[in-house]
């Protein structure tokens, strides 16, 4: 068997196009959001424990590092949401041409970033 047969593009050598990067980020944000869910359930738990626990938690949530983490969570969620909407559009059999894939990849990034800015401003 000769050893010079072509192999499939390797992830560390092949530069993923924007659409590919977004696709893997969709999975990555999905996993990160699942881990973040632990934090959300923890917050709800603290609320059931009473006022003292809640005010203590609120002080922690309002620190700069928590706020950065929170904005990160919001961005991950909105990015995942925007890409999810594109999946729903693809499921309807639309926007599959190469130009449209690249175009809407950019649109999705811009919309998720703007929504994050808007919601972060309202939240913080």
């Amino acid at each position, binding site marked *: 068997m000769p050893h010079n047969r072509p192999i499939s593009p390797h992830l560390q050598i092949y530069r993923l196009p924007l659409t590919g990067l977004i696709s893997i980020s969709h999975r990555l944000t*999905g996993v990160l959001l*699942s881990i973040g869910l*632990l934090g959300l359930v923890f917050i*709800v738990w603290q*609320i059931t424990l009473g006022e003292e626990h809640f005010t203590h938690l609120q002080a922690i*949530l309002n620190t700069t590092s928590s706020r950065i983490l*929170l904005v990160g969570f919001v961005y991950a969620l909105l990015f995942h*949401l925007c890409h999810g*909407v594109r999946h729903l559009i693809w499921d309807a059999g639309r926007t599959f041409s190469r130009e449209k894939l690249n175009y809407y990849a950019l649109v999705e990034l811009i919309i998720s970033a703007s929504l994050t800015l808007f919601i972060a401003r*309202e939240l913080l």
Partner: protein
Amino acid sequence: MRNLFAKPHLAHFHWLQQRLSAFFLLPLSYWLFMFAERCLHANYSEMLTWLHSPMNKYGLIAWFLLVCYHGALGVQVIFEDYISRTRQRLAIWSANTFFIGLALCAVLFLVQI
């Protein structure tokens, strides 16, 4: 598109559940953001008043339930793609336990508030 709800094949069912949960999670995100805003700024009694309103309580419960289901379906696909056959079952089983546990905790906590 025409046969979207026909043919109850297992993979097709998984795909459909993933999309349906995503679709319903879109509007439910509203409650998550409202909740987050109150976590940061409301005092305890304001928080309780907000959570005692049935719209908010059940909106948030619905978000937690659906998001756990959506997450379990998604993580299953990732494990199927990246984990070898022999360890796949255990990995998916663990992920499902994680999400069922989270959903149960969230609902139990929210109901008792």
